[in-house]
């Protein structure tokens, strides 16, 4: 049932999902929802924040959801500070900017990330997943600036930038992209993820040869414990994923997922 909490509404999902669309400031609190049910709440009920008690950093994720509802500008200005808390340590921190363009930029990003992961405690078991998430999120950001398949000439490159960022705190690795295009339609992205769950991944693939395969966001969500999507239309898109840091994959493989969406005109 919904309960007002300042400017936000907390909805305890243990009593069931809402039957209709909720106010966009609603934060759903659940315990062990399956990934497809999390996406259902976002896509069908308009719930912009779903946070799970049994998930990673529950209290911090609820605080983050409140901040995204009440002070969205703070999230847009410093998303990693918002996710980890401004006073969190930055011992393991990379933040490098790369302008969009042909494929070698992505190779540079992935190469940097690979080196970063080698020195990051607890990243051993999620190496492949982190590289895949980085590849998909960077590709999604970069394709707003230039085609990602086939030869690219200068006239096809739109002015703008894509920045890859990553930070870890010993429990979570958060990584992803910020771009200056603000072109992502968050609702379409959520529908694509939902389609992969409902219709299958192969059936959801976009066969248009010039673009992406349309399943990258699903793959990133599937690998992540939390996904953060924020769009300031025409100005900025932020898509980040949190992955669990642990020595053993078995300890984290069944953690439930969180999802956060924030859109502003």
């Amino acid at each position, binding site marked *: 049932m919904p309960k007002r909490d300042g400017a936000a509404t907390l909805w305890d999902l243990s009593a069931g999902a809402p039957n209709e669309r909720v106010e966009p400031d609603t934060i759903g609190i659940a315990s062990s929802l399956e990934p497809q049910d999390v996406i259902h709440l976002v896509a069908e009920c308009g719930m912009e924040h779903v946070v799970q008690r049994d998930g990673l950093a529950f209290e911090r994720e609820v605080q983050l959801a409140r901040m995204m509802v009440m002070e969205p500008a703070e999230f847009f200005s410093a998303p990693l500070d918002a996710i980890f808390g401004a006073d969190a340590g930055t011992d393991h921190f990379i933040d490098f900017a790369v302008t969009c363009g042909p*494929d070698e930029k992505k*190779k540079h990003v*992935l*190469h940097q990330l690979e080196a970063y992961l080698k020195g990051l405690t607890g990243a*051993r*078991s999620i190496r*492949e997943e982190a*590289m*895949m998430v980085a*590849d*998909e999120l960077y*590709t999604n950001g970069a394709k707003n600036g230039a085609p*990602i*398949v086939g030869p690219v000439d200068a006239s096809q490159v739109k002015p703008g930038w894509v920045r890859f960022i990553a930070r870890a705190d010993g429990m979570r690795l958060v990584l992803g992209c910020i771009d200056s295009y603000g072109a992502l339609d968050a609702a379409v992205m959520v529908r694509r993820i939902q389609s992969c769950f409902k219709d*299958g*991944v*192969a059936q959801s*693939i*976009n*066969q248009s040869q010039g673009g*992406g*395969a*349309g*399943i*990258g966001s699903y*793959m990133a969500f*599937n690998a992540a414990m939390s996904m953060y999507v924020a769009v300031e239309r025409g100005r900025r898109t932020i898509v980040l994923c949190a992955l669990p840091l642990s*020595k*053993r*994959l*078995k300890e984290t*493989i*069944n953690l439930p997922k969180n999802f956060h969406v924030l859109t502003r005109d």
Partner: protein
Amino acid sequence: MVDFKVHEKTDGDNLLLVFEGVIDEDVVFPAVDTGTYKKVFIDLKGVKSINSVGIREWLNWMKPLSEKAQLVFMKAPKALVLQMNMVEGFLPKTGFVKSFYVPFYCERCDKEESVLFSVGQEIELSRGAYKVKFDIASAKLCAEQACEMEMDASEAKYFQFLKRMAG
């Protein structure tokens, strides 16, 4: 990151393809004369990663090929095993995985190993089910006496594709 490369070798009716590198938007899979070969063996040991566009290209290349020839996959790394489990058709219905890598880890020694499991040896398939016959103690993955090496994956999820092969 390593660009994608293919090495080819023929042996009568059989073709061996050895894949190396990253399967992404730059991948160019080889054109295979499906009238010539009955079996195509694909060695995947050198594949480092695959992304969503790579998955699309793989499916588009694999589908017509699997209708004409039997495909046998060998030494599939974790990155491809994950896709076999997640994407229907990634492992074609007529495809057969002869061997694949399984991750192991010991927290005590902080040591990791990727162990090659082969169907008929470490894995037994029968009547829609699979059975793991790997004995970790006798495999001696680590020289340390007190080593606590164990499989670093959820067995039910990681071996899911075997059920389809056994069916």
